């Protein structure tokens, strides 16, 4: 850990590689720019503090996912507890131009289900991997997925 300056060092490389992924995860839970920044700083600092322990890229990615999701979910919980009313005022700062109904529906899912949908449908990970990342029982994950799909169908049909 001697190179702490310079533009092409390992810090820059890692951040460039994984920023988008972390940003997407933040999108699923956070509405606030400050919170996003908070997640980025904490997650990446931890990442680099544990940098020497990662065995490969997959390991890095899986680790980042898990930590990012956990941090986002924590913030999401505290956000909801502190600001029950007036939630509608909190506009999505980073709002997609044409957010599909489906995406809107996903954003309405409970936190764990959101994570599951992302991992399964966006990243295409198999259930065992998802179970590892989410630190849940595989059966639990299956149940969760079933439930999520049902919910989504309901929501989409409602919205449309």
């Amino acid at each position: 850990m001697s190179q702490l300056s310079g533009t092409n060092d390992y810090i820059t490389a890692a951040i460039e590689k994984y920023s988008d992924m972390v940003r997407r995860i933040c999108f699923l839970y956070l509405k606030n720019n400050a919170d996003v920044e908070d997640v980025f700083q904490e997650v990446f600092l931890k990442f680099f503090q544990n940098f020497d322990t990662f065995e490969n890229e997959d390991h890095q990615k899986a680790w980042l996912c898990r930590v990012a999701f956990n941090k986002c979910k924590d913030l999401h919980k505290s956000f909801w507890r502190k600001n029950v009313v007036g939630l509608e005022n909190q506009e999505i700062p980073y709002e997609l131009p044409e957010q599909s109904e489906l995406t809107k529906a996903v954003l309405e899912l409970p936190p764990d289900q959101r994570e599951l949908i992302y991992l399964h449908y966006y990243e295409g990970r198999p259930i065992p991997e998802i179970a590892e990342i989410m630190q849940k029982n595989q059966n639990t994950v299956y149940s969760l997925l079933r439930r999520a799909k049902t919910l989504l169908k309901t929501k989409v049909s409602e919205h449309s």
Partner: protein
Amino acid sequence: MNPFVNDLNNIKAEETLKEKTKAFVRTELTKAQYAKTTVRTEHKKENPFMKKIIGAISAVAACTLLVICGFAFYNTPLNYVSVDINPSVELGINAFDRVVTMQAFNEDGEQLLAGLNVMQMSLQDAVSNLVEQADEQGYLNDDGSSVIAITAESNNEQTAAQIQTACENTITLTLNKGETTAVVYTDAVTLHFAQQAKESGVSPGKFRLIQVLQSLDPTITVDQYRNAKISDIIAAAGAMLDQPGNNGNGNGQGNADNADALQRIRNAIKAQNAEQTQTQSMTLGDSGNGETYTEQNQNQNANQYKNSETQAKEQEKEQKKAENGNSTTASPATPGNNGNGNSNGNGNAGGNGNAGTASCSADCSSDCSASCSASCTSSCSSSCSSSCASDGTGTSSANGNSNGGKG
């Protein structure tokens, strides 16, 4: 799910966000590295506080220690004074000449101490009170024949001498106030000698006098005189001095003469010791015999005296003794005796007795009148001076009896 995927694909991390994060991470990691190599100074807060507490406690502890030490020092006897008449007591004196310990060596001593508490008094007050108490309890004879022996116990000659003189003066004053008289005999011993005395169960003062007796007669044991009055011991010594070979010094004299003799003897001893073996009189524990031996030699050869004045005194003493004939602890009735007659007996004085031609010295008259005190009156002084002037030939036996050893 495609719409969802599509939407997510459109999401990119803002550049500013990325740059901020990079800067943040670099800073934090640098801090961490620095922190590892820097000495921790987290404990600063604790130290000043702890130091104050420790400082305060130390101060209190130091003060307490000083108080305890001071208290101990104050109550530690530095020298001792042995007061013997018949009762034997010993007072311990601290560095400030205050009485811090009292000890009795016989029943009479205990009686004496029981009657009064001299602790914390100055030495002079204590001695004065003791003498008065002794008088009240009847330990001082009406005829003034009692001898009060004051023995300073110290390893410092000056201190010892100061104690002797001071006590002598104090007692003289005390006696003058009242109706009684007594003879004051002072001496000094080392603390080592005093220790030996105590081991034998005898007061140092008395032990010293017994030692003197032993110098005259080696067969004498401590037990013989363990319970004797000081005056008795002195009488016994005097008796021995009277015997042939000892310079035939007569004893029996009036109180005044005894007192005179005592005074002179005392002076003589001091002078002798000053000239000859000063250490001997002070370090009695060890060389008591030597001293006596020397005295005996002196007796036999007046020429050993280095001090002519001393010689003169000695000769005068001898002369007076010769005049009076023998007497020991004679009863007062015996003419020429006082019951004391022992004054000469302070063999220590070096019962010199060669009745050589004595040239009276000036001291004679002065000593005489001084020692006479109230009871003596004019006759005393006159006889003294006259005998002195007569030049050695014991002129008038009349002298000796001036006081009427009538008892």
